[in-house]
């Protein structure tokens, strides 16, 4: 929110626009929830919804941010670290311990060795 009095109607309109768009996207999300999707598609859909909603917020506040370079730095660093925070564990094989991938490997190891009977 800006501190200038002449900006008040502009800011009110901005917030109204933001919450209307978010309401519409939320309604779309509720519709998507009733579609039975595979896990990978559900995760992709979740990430897309989050990115779109986050993008809408950033887009709406872009003019405000443009006048405050320090906020751009704060937001930029936050986005950078959050993406790193989310992506690093996902791409790092070492953190897949206890998941189905390791489970499959263990199952393979626990399989009794096949006995070959020679003639």
């Amino acid at each position, binding site marked *: *929110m800006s*501190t200038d009095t002449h900006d008040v109607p502009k800011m*009110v309109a901005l917030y109204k626009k933001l919450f209307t768009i978010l309401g519409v996207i939320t309604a779309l999300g509720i519709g998507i929830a009733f579609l039975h999707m595979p896990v990978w598609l559900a995760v992709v859909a979740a990430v897309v919804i989050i990115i779109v909603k986050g993008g809408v917020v950033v887009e709406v506040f872009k003019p405000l941010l443009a006048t*405050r370079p320090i906020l751009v730095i*704060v937001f930029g660093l936050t986005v950078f670290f959050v993406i790193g925070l989310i992506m690093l*564990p996902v791409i790092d094989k070492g953190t897949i311990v*206890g998941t189905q991938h390791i*489970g499959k490997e263990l199952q393979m190891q626990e399989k009794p060795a096949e006995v070959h009977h020679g003639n």
Partner: protein
Amino acid sequence: MSSEIPYIVEERPDTGLNNATLGIWLFLSSEVMLFGALFSSYMLMRVGAAHWPSGASLLSIPIATLNTVILISSSIAVVFAWASLKEGNFAKFRACWALSILGGLAFLALKAVEYNKDFAEGLFPSSSTFMAIYFVLTGLHGLHIIGGLIVNSYLLGPGAKMHKEDPARYAHRIEIAGIYWHFVDLLWIILLFPVLYLL
């Protein structure tokens, strides 16, 4: 020598922001990291799990949708409260601010109803990984709502005295509290509701 803290209301020349505005954005940035870490855990567990229940099949979408509507309305009430204060209409500000507090209380009440429903159905944090991350995320969000409600109630009650003594500073406090409230609402609307309930 004056002991007054500078840049409480006026902007610093170097950052273009006053102390509290920069402070709240840095604080919210750390909050994004906190919830980002939990979301990262959620993603990792979900992608790695052999079976992951659909939130829609376990949780109540109507209650969560109603809570989303309540939070959106509460945020809009905060915007109107701030605008009224800026325009010098203190009575309208108080009404809108009180409405936003009521919205927060209604959200918590509905969340309590939902938790009771979950417990009655035998859904506890120990029931599954999904329920554990659900209770952690929504519980932490609930704590943030409670924190916001305490501050907002103070500003409506005893803290409102500042409006007579130093109206510019009071308006600034309302602005900062409003930014926090928007963040807590957006957290629910953008992250928690779609991730936990819809997918």
